[in-house]
């Protein structure tokens, strides 16, 4: 029997998340490179419908891992369910998207099995028989190829956007779906989660913005945000920020771009004084054009910028506002 790769997809609020499809794409690439069998699993209560949806993709099998105790999500129940499943359905490699939910339970699951997870990977390499998983280190300034030195199952999570959801291959015919009921004893689940909610109605929808001017720590003081605002106004764009700016209360939370804020894909993303921490990049790397201004030539934002200016934003932005105004007036 060949080794198995299991992709655990994520469903929330009645939908499979896009990163789930991305992770299946990653699994399909790994299966092609290793010759291992690719399977998928959906975890929850009443998830057979999701399993059916996943079964349309090129997979050998899809499992619906079921228990009424899996709804609502708790790390205790999810870790217990997957540990039980993996003990009867051994897998060599277990892949999941690096979502907040997976981050919440995968270290627990791996530890409960005496194993480890290589988290937040952006790709993999095959070095002879060895699989190396690539992940960003030091906030994206460096990258590392990491190998497992322990026994299987090997747990890996992939970063949002590491693989493309629209590249997922459909199957020639639907994969068989099997429901596996897991037993979760009373007392296993200790946390009592309440309803999921949104803090306030999002006043600003940046996902539709064509032009975004975003500020980061390099803006230094709240009063300096005004020059970014002037530039955004001159360009006819919206103002946004990285997390530290919103944490400081300099701009409201609904202006935040990144994993905990909004994910945007404008025509133009102009990053002022943003270093480009991973959590920010995942929210804006889909922009068609990225212009970055930063005084630190090593800033990771430059890795993904189309046009880069190494310099002090306070020197660059004022003349830029004037030039933009001139250009707009002149044409």
């Amino acid at each position, binding site marked *: 029997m060949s080794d198995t790769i299991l992709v655990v997809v994520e469903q929330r609020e009645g939908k499979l998340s896009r990163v789930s499809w991305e992770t299946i794409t990653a699994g399909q690439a790994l299966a092609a490179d290793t010759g291992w069998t690719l399977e998928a699993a959906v975890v929850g209560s009443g998830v057979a419908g999701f399993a059916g949806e996943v079964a349309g993709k090129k997979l050998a099998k899809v499992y619906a891992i079921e228990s009424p105790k899996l709804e609502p999500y708790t790390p205790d129940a999810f870790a217990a369910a997957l540990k039980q499943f993996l003990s009867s359905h051994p897998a060599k490699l277990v892949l999941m998207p690096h979502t907040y939910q997976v981050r919440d339970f995968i270290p627990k699951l791996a530890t409960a099995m005496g194993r480890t997870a290589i988290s937040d990977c952006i790709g993999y390499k095959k070095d002879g028989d060895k699989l190396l998983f690539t992940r960003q280190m030091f906030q994206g300034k460096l990258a590392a190829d990491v190998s497992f030195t322990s026994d299987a199952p090997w747990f890996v999570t992939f970063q949002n956007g590491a693989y493309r959801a629209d590249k997922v291959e459909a199957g020639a015919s639907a994969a068989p779906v099997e429901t596996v009921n897991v037993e979760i004893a009373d007392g296993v689940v200790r946390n009592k989660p309440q309803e999921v909610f949104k803090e306030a109605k999002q006043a600003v929808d940046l996902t539709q913005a064509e032009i975004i001017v975003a500020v980061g720590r390099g803006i230094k003081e709240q009063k300096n945000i005004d020059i970014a605002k002037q530039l955004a106004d001159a360009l006819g764009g919206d103002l946004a920020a990285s997390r530290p700016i919103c944490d400081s209360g300099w701009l409201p939370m609904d202006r935040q771009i990144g994993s905990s804020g909004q994910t945007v894909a404008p025509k133009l993303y102009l990053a002022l004084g943003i270093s480009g921490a991973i959590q920010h990049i995942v929210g804006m790397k889909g922009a068609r054009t990225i212009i970055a201004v930063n005084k630190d030539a090593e800033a990771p934002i430059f890795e993904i910028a189309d046009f880069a200016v190494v310099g002090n934003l306070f020197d660059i932005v004022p003349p830029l506002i004037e030039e*933009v105004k001139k250009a707009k007036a002149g044409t």
Partner: protein
Amino acid sequence: MKILVCMKQVPQKDAPLKLNESGTWIREDVSYEVNEPDAFALEESLRQKEKHGGEVVVITSGPARAQQVLREALAKGADRAIHLEDNAFVGLDAFNTARAFAAAIKDEQFDLIFTGLQSDDYGYAQTGVVLAELLGWPHATIIMHIEKNDAGIRVKRELEAGYFQYVDMPLPAVLTIQSGINKLRYATLIGIKQAKNKPLRKVTLAEVQSAIGANLQKIERLYVPQKTKNTEFLEGPPAEVAKKLVDKLRNEVRVL
């Protein structure tokens, strides 16, 4: 409440990093600072102590330089510190770091353990959750608010895309704290003075050696990532750069 805060010293945000000769780690000669989410975790523990009484203990692992993080925490108001002091701790994976911490605190009775939600160096976001599992405690991650009640605590978890969720949980528990949960305080002069007399327990590698094992994962190679984009750097005096940018905005990006 008796709270343990796990803290880590990481290279400063803007510090240029150089690879070591074997290309498996960075050279040590950089400036370090406290991992930012850990600073918020410390602040939250001090606020909880101010509300409910108790004790705040800070713990870190790493070489002698890492003690700076503990000194700063003591100056801000932590009561005592534990330093797992050895260079070898730097290379431990999350599983073994958590096992070393668990061994170092085995005679303590904490109500809560805080960690930052992830570190700025490895960025694994695992050590806190692994520690909870090793201790057999419940945990919750990416916490933005903590309130004590009769049954335990109610915490506010941050979910993705602007969503949140309250979770009720019993104590003892492990929480990983999100940056921005509170406003950080500065150490006062008197605090810095008092810190000198606060207890700092050193734990050697030998003391926890039996609790840890071989790493379960290994960094084979550390390197400067290959650029995937062809970045064009615009140079010159600011006025000239501004003109060049406008030219790009008009003719290439086509937004003007």
